[in-house]
């Protein structure tokens, strides 16, 4: 979800006079309207009027600009959607962009329009660049699926061609550089070439836009030409193009750009995009285009989902107030989204917009009334009993992170190269410290022990928590297991003390057990054992090997035991 900056004065102008009368719009007022756009005010500078707003809905890119926010609020205040007549433009346009063959394998789609009489002011340019970046970055997945180019219209001679050329064939001066470079050089040297080059890598020819006189507009979707593709304050007319890999996303992005520019007073002139082969919308697509379709939704369904009886008119009004085109029959409402939206997947999407349009406070909360019985899982119940008993025996409970490092879990425990050295590791660790899931509780307790040598002794620590055991037999390659780990550390801590605690614990759990000697590298030889119950190992007990303590820089004798909680819960 993007966070954008807007200027309060600019916002007030876009909102129009009807909304605010002659009084200036305040930040508080704006904040009260923000639920309409799922926005949250993050920050504000009272002096400059700059506001930072987070927009939550990743399916509503039309809201990621000052124009978009103002539009949604304006519709609510006006009770009607703005007219964008250019979506119904007569077929008199002569401007054309020709798409060359072969682009279907590289970057197939393009949409474009001209914004005439558009006064590029400082604030308008800031917003233009911001929306271009947010749309390409987040909606367009860092230009992979969608990217946007803006050009100085008067410099272009139509028709424009969306072409494929060899990287050494064409030279132009890219933005930010002084001299002409070949496309290959741009890809190898220009910061944008390095950043976005991979999008078109692996093709013999790369996509460019050039005009009828062969002037290069841009190496798409990477960098504009310096001569034509640098929009400045004071420009009066722009050429806007969107390219990408998904036709509807490309068209939607252009529609958003077009209505944003229109909201600032530009007259939008459509452009015919001519493909070599027919697309889903034909061989020639006049863009911007309203490709949305009406859907019919049963009123009953809306009422059921909201839990509130609403008349057909109330529903229609709510939808009109939210920018939809809507008409009602007896049982159904026919809805169509405005052309700058394409987020209607299911009728529930309309349900939410009805609720937002009416305001969530319009719906009185009702308690779910059906009777259910609450309960804890078996493993949680056993864990809780264990924890109570451990506290009663005098142990302090610990909670630890489950992520740890291989040195902590394996190397320090003297387990490297042994049968105990398989653990769940992550491929894309951010730091080694958090790169594995713990397979035992003891390392977590040693971490506490190592950090607490100045805390009053004796230390009796325990944790009941989840671990992941590497297990090739399991579908996920590991099992999540609840374990109890306990550690006793003080000057004369020994096996017998731990054994006494274990014995008491298992007595109260009614779990008969025996200890079977175990040679385990983490423990002193002859002072460790498996805890067996009904012939099955349920845990370990032992005096930690001095080398383990040294590795952890623990200077007190320490003795531990661990139990698998799930196995304690099992009755024979």
């Amino acid at each position: 979800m993007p966070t954008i900056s807007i200027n309060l004065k600019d916002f007030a102008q876009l909102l129009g006079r009807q909304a605010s009368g002659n009084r200036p719009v305040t930040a508080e007022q704006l904040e009260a309207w923000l639920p309409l756009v799922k926005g949250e005010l993050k920050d504000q500078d009272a002096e400059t009027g700059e506001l930072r707003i987070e927009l939550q809905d990743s399916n509503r890119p039309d809201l990621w600009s000052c124009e978009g926010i103002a539009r949604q609020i304006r519709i609510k205040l006006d009770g009607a959607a703005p007219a964008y007549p250019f979506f119904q433009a007569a077929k008199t346009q002569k401007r054309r962009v020709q798409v060359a063959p072969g682009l279907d394998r590289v970057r197939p789609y393009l949409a474009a329009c001209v914004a005439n009489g558009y006064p590029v002011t400082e604030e308008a340019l800031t917003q233009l660049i911001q929306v271009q970046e947010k749309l390409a970055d987040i909606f367009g997945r860092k230009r992979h699926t969608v990217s946007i180019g803006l050009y100085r219209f008067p410099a272009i001679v139509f028709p424009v061609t969306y072409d494929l050329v060899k990287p050494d064939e064409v030279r132009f001066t890219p933005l930010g550089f002084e001299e002409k470079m070949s496309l290959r050089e741009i890809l190898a040297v220009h910061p944008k070439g390095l950043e976005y080059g991979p999008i078109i890598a692996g093709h013999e020819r790369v996509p460019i836009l050039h005009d009828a006189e062969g002037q290069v507009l841009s190496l798409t979707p990477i960098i504009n030409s310096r001569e034509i593709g640098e929009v400045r304050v004071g420009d009066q007319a722009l050429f806007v193009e969107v390219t990408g890999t998904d036709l509807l996303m490309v068209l939607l992005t252009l529609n958003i750009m077009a209505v944003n520019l229109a909201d600032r007073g530009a007259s939008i002139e459509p452009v015919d995009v001519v493909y070599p082969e027919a697309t889903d919308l034909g061989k020639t697509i006049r863009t911007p285009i309203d490709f949305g379709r009406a859907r019919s939704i049963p009123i009953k369904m809306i009422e059921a989902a909201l839990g509130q009886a609403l008349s057909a008119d109330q529903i229609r009004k709510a939808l009109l107030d939210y920018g939809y085109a809507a008409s009602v029959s007896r049982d159904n409402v026919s809805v169509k989204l405005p052309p700058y939206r394409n987020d209607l997947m299911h009728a529930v999407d309309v349900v939410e917009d009805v609720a937002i349009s009416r305001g969530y406070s319009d719906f009185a909360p009702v308690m779910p009334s059906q009777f259910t019985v609450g309960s804890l899982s078996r493993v949680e119940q056993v864990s809780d009993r264990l924890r109570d008993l451990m506290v009663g025996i005098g142990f302090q409970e610990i909670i630890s992170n489950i992520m740890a490092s291989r040195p902590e879990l394996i190397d320090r425990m003297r387990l490297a190269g042994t049968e105990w050295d398989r653990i769940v590791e992550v491929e894309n660790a951010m730091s080694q410290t958090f790169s594995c899931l713990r397979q035992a509780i003891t390392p977590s307790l040693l971490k506490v022990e190592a950090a607490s040598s100045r805390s009053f002794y004796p230390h009796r620590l325990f944790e009941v928590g989840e671990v992941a055991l590497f297990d090739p037999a399991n579908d996920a390659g590991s099992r999540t297991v609840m374990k109890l780990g306990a550690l006793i550390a003080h000057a004369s801590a020994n096996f017998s003390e731990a054994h006494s605690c274990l014995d008491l614990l298992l007595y109260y759990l009614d779990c008969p057990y025996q200890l079977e000697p175990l040679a385990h590298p983490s423990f002193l030889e002859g002072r460790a054992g498996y805890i067996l119950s009904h012939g099955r190992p349920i845990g370990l007990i032992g005096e930690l090997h001095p080398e383990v303590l040294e590795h952890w820089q623990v200077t007190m004798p320490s003795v531990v035991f661990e139990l698998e909680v799930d196995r304690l819960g099992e009755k024979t």
Partner: protein
Amino acid sequence: MDMTALIDSLHPLEIKVLTALKAEQAKAPSGALRDDEISQHASLEASQVSMAIGWLLAKSLIKEQHKTVTPIVSLTKIGERYFEKYSPVERILSAVRDAGQTGKRLTIQDIQSREELEASEMSGAIGTLKKEGAIRIVSGGCVEATGNPSPTAESLRTLLQQLRGTKRELTALAEPLRRVVEQHAVKRGNTNEPFRIDDHVDRWYVLTPEGGTAADLLVQQGPSEEVSQLTPELLKDGSWRTKRFRKYTISLRPPRVLAGKRHPYREFLDLVKHKLVSMGFEEMRGSLVENEFWNMDALYMPQFHPARAIHDVYFVKEPTHARGIAEPFLSQVAAVHRDGGKTGSTGWGYAYDQERARRLVLRSQGTAVSARTLASGPKVPGKYFSIARCFRYDAVDATHACDFFQVEGIVLGPDINFRTLLGLLNLFAVEMAQAKESRFLPAYFPFTEPSVELHVRHPKLNWIELGGAGLFRPEVTLPLGVDVPVIAWGLGLDRMAMVALGIHDIRDLFSTDLDLIRTTRGKF
């Protein structure tokens, strides 16, 4: 002060001292005892007496009658050395006499370097010897013995021998010796001397009138022995009846006790858990390692969703993929992503990758547990919750932990709709945050529609976002075999936990500092 209360508060040492003074009062008219006499009469150590006297003086039960000051002479370290190696006076005299016998002539410098004496030691000693006529300075600055004795040298030797390892009263010394001592005693500004004179103070104490009354009362109370500890023996033989039990000063800080204790954050989570159970929620559990199908696909998050990228989720190194995804869920979810399947949705409209669905990740959201529950034939009506450990690919800092608990769940039933969703959230606001005010804001989650954020006015934190919720999209429920509406809810409780525990860094919820864990008390 009430005399009985005063007596009850007396320490056994105080009682012994009072009793000794009382006895002396009865014997001698002055009734005074010196501190060492008190020691003797009361059979106490000098240090015990000194403590008891201090306390009794503070309580005005005794007073100092008079004191005497006795100067006591003893050897300093230098004195000890002079005893072994002779004093400068002795050494110079002996050196000069030896030289005289062999006909050598010694200057002052010769003597000083031969005897390794300090200039200050030399000048003092030469002065003394010259004055006494034991030596003289002749031409050429040479020193000669006159043959006359040096009373100082002799007195010094006598004193060094007499005082070695002991002390003497100054007044007990003969007059000439006393004068030598006074000349050669450590004084301010001259510490290089063999003798020191210390004033020994003897103090005599008597009972004050109050002390007398107190002592009388003590005598009246009889000889019953005061004890501090009731013992099994006292109980067994009944002898406790003849004992008095000393009253304690109960305002003192007690010694430290180490206790077994639940972890404060776990206490908070236990509280949450029990609240949810009391509201009729059944606990569900899941696995730390999940596949992308249950972690995301089943929740209608498209495979190209930005939150699924390499920088948001931890991928498991080995094995990389689960063996398979259970049918019919895989086919049904795949269809819903492609074109909406049978849900009435358009779907996301992309080629669903079944290989990707099996990719193993660390569970990134508790909702994965809910998805599994939906597919397992849940009860209808049903309420479920989990407190699930989740993992996010974030740099660890004061507000981000590498793994954390998510409290979330679902509510299924034919009566579930937007208004019952709000009703449930209101209940959470009251039960979980003791909030008197709450408000609902539109929100966005990929798997719910409508979606709501619950904001509450917390008693301490003012307005906070307590949680997010919504009705599961049909694209989520129908492919998993659930055909009633389902609320999905999640609560963000860590900030409340941090306030309750008085900590400011989220990492301290999992602190490794035992002192912090032992001393933190939750204010829930």
